């Protein structure tokens, strides 16, 4: 399942379209707001769910090769973060639901796709 397919299935809005959403495969989901913890635990291809929207999120998502970052509850993403994400090729999605709900929905969709 690609990031684009996930966004369409769950109605999450793609905030940074890097041109890769139709190619980037999702393999799992991980939720954490402690950046070093997330850095140690995110697996390549994971959807990373966090409420942080600062620049450092772009660096962590890029280094860990997360498939995308999902910002829950329609939290507004800082403009400089969007610009940096586009430059670094990190896909950000905005979801209207809670972080817990995002995890549940992503796992359900992945399970269905198997």
């Amino acid at each position, binding site marked *: 399942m690609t990031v684009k397919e996930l966004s369409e299935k769950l109605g999450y809005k793609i905030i940074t379209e890097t041109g890769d959403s139709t190619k980037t495969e999702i393999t799992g989901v991980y939720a954490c707001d*402690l*950046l070093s913890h997330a850095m140690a635990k995110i697996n390549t291809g994971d959807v990373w769910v966090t409420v942080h929207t*600062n*620049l*450092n999120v772009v660096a962590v998502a890029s*280094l860990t090769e997360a498939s995308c970052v999902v910002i829950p509850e329609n939290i507004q993403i800082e403009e400089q973060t969007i610009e940096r994400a586009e430059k*670094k090729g990190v896909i950000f999605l905005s979801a209207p639901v809670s972080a817990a709900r995002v995890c549940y929905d992503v796992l359900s969709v992945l399970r269905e796709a198997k």
Partner: protein
Amino acid sequence: MKKAVIVRDYTIPANDFTIAGEASSNVRKILTQLGVSPNVVKRASIAMYEAEINAVIHGKGGNAHVEIDENKIYIVISDEGPGIADLELAMQEGYSTAPDSIREMGFGAGMGLSNMKKHADILDIDTEVNRGTTVHITVYFNSDKKI
């Protein structure tokens, strides 16, 4: 030691999160272009990012020196910050001296040093109170260490 093929030096600014991570991001790009395995690229860049962020947060900025040869990447991050009073304690997951302003950004989980150790093949830390800290990270390209 074999002659380094690529050498890079970066300045790490103090408390500037708009540039923090640029050095490790650049090194990641170089390693990827060299065709180094994705696991090694990820480990080296994560270990370097943690050291870079520590220099930004704790070390009043500093310098990064990187040497890449055909077998490994060797990274040195040095700062002239306050140093680490109890290195053994600082290596423990969860121990952090980061201020609240840093925690609000999502840092300060007390995992930086342990993440470096986990991702590097060799980690050496020289530190002295009131003099600064120098972190040496080595990652071998043929290492099968998993993360």
